[in-house]
């Protein structure tokens, strides 16, 4: 009896040990790979590397235009995705009742999150460029301005891709606002819109911010959807145009131009450049920049959410 029990415990000990071992094996490999990127990449990184443009067939210079393009695309993406996502979440959490229709909407949010990223690329090409863009060109008679791959359509497509992220984190934030706060607002005679505007959304703001940051980090790392939506191998000029009102001109991001993109830049340098081994240090450098960027964004989002949840616990 005694022996049997000990034997059982022993096999349990081994199994749990294996589980533990697997976890630390994973962590070890991950740290190893990240460490390798860090060690190889840190030597390349300097201020010039971050600002300069690629030179000499991409074997020298930096990634300035790629960073600029990434920032420009994600900026437009946020402008599209965040209002849409937040409004959508407000409808689902504040107005909609639990009907068959809203359940379909919730299912389609989950499904949208699971659509392969390359399919978003096809969608962007078929819908935004060939349908919306071409029709805009016809209506405004602008020749071939909108009906071609451009920064605008890449951001719009990425906005659809990150929409579920914004909706889900906003939903979570709205859901965590106590019902008593809404009731108190109604009790003071506020209408539904006033309650949403003045009571619910301000409390949910950290959650919305978390969703926005996560969306930026996801959008900045995506490559597949923008492959044929205007990401360029190399561009001599930044996608900037002067916006003139009278005599005053300000340089603005030109959303109808092509752009360089950090994630795409890594892909191109690693697979399509004429001499991948010669550019290897630059590839490590660019990868390190992208990883640091996404990690910083994600860590910020995690800290925001952690604080938000903690503050709710105190309520």
């Amino acid at each position, binding site marked *: 009896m005694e022996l049997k029990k000990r034997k*059982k*415990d022993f*096999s*349990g000990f081994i*199994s*749990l040990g294996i*589980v533990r071992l697997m*976890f630390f*094996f*994973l*962590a070890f490999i*991950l740290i190893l*790979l990240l460490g*390798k990127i860090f060690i190889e990449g840190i030597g390349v990184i300097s201020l010039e590397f971050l600002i300069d443009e690629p030179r000499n067939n991409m074997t020298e210079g930096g990634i300035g235009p790629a960073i600029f393009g990434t920032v420009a695309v994600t900026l437009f993406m946020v402008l599209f995705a965040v209002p849409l996502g937040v*409004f*959508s979440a*407000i*409808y*689902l959490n*504040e*107005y909609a009742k639990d009907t068959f229709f809203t359940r379909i*909407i919730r*299912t*389609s949010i989950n499904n*949208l999150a*699971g*659509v*392969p*990223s*390359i*399919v978003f*690329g*096809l*969608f962007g090409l078929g*819908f935004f460029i*060939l349908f919306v863009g071409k029709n805009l060109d016809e209506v405004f008679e602008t020749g071939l301005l909108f009906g071609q791959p451009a920064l605008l359509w890449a951001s719009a497509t990425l906005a*659809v891709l990150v*929409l*579920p992220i914004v909706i889900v984190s906003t939903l979570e934030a709205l859901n965590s606002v106590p019902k008593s706060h809404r009731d108190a607002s109604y009790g003071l005679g506020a*209408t*539904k*819109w006033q309650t949403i505007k003045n009571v619910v959304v301000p409390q949910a703001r950290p959650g919305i911010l978390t969703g926005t940051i996560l969306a930026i*980090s*996801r959008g900045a*790392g995506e*490559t*597949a959807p923008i*492959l044929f939506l205007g990401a360029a191998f190399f561009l001599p000029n930044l996608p900037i145009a002067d916006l003139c009102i009278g005599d005053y001109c300000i340089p603005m991001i030109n959303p109808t131009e092509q752009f360089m993109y950090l994630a*795409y830049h890594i*892909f191109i340098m*690693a*697979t399509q450049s004429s001499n991948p081994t010669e550019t290897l240090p630059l*590839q490590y450098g660019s990868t390190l920049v*992208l*990883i640091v960027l*996404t*990690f910083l964004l*994600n*860590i910020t989002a*995690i800290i925001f959410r952690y604080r938000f949840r903690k503050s709710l616990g105190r309520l």
Partner: protein
Amino acid sequence: MEEKDFFAKSVNSKYAKKIKKFTRVKESAIKFFFAVNGTMALIFIILIFIFLFKEGFRALDHIGLLDFLYLDRTDASGTVERVFQWYPTSEEPRYSLIPLLIGTFLTAFPATVISTLLGVGAGIYLSEVANPKLKEFLKPMIELFAGIPTVVLGFVMLVIGASFFNDLLHPANRLNAFVASIGLSFVIIPIIASLTEDALHSIPNDLRMASYGLGATKWQTVSKVILPAAFSGVSASIILGFGRAIGETMIVLMCAGNAANLTTNIFLSVRTMTATIAAEMGEVSQGSDHYYSLFFIGIVLFTFTFFLNLIAEIIVNRMRKKNTF
């Protein structure tokens, strides 16, 4: 009584009525505005559906549905040979999706097996073994892990992983399905791990306590009580992981070798559906058969992942209903 009359009068006065009406109209207009925005996710799913099918079905005008499976080639001597090849740019274009489907499964399936072992293990560790303080630190780490851009993982597998496995296993092709599936499992492990953790965590503590009360050890409790109770949640996470593996583009594009081999050998180069779209869409002329056939591949891909997601969602919803103890 008088007061009540006064109240009724003021509420029903002409002015108050006007305000009331205005507010009501305004409120319902706002509600309508939000409702339109609220349906956007559904609208986009429908739009993706429409525009994929609109372009993809044009492929069927010139290419038959059977041509997407095989092509009967007649060579000079008149013998008919049935070929399963993806070779759309040749003079006699061949559009068989079979090698692409095999390539997709040859990368996605091993990746799912590896990730199931490691991911479920990591989920068990997080939920049942790790002490709470460590867990609070490790859960965000998994999230961070999941946030690594796939192009970075593709790059890592290309410059580090491929050489490592080349020296270790001496495969026939340096870039092959195996290398790609290892890269894919880096994407899927965090998904399976965090969803498994969620599923295990949602099992009520009473069950654990009851099991311990009956004299079970920790491992007995985990393997005989907790895992069976969370079975549906864990399997949903595996299905979702498999869906991600099928839909992943950059890693297979960079690491699988991109040769449309008709093979079941995991150490040969293969080409997946996603990589085919990514590699060929940029060079194809718009409106050609080849162009439409790439959209057709998109339809196949979309349908696969759509149903996998739907199945996982149904399982999770059922689990939620069942788990309201």
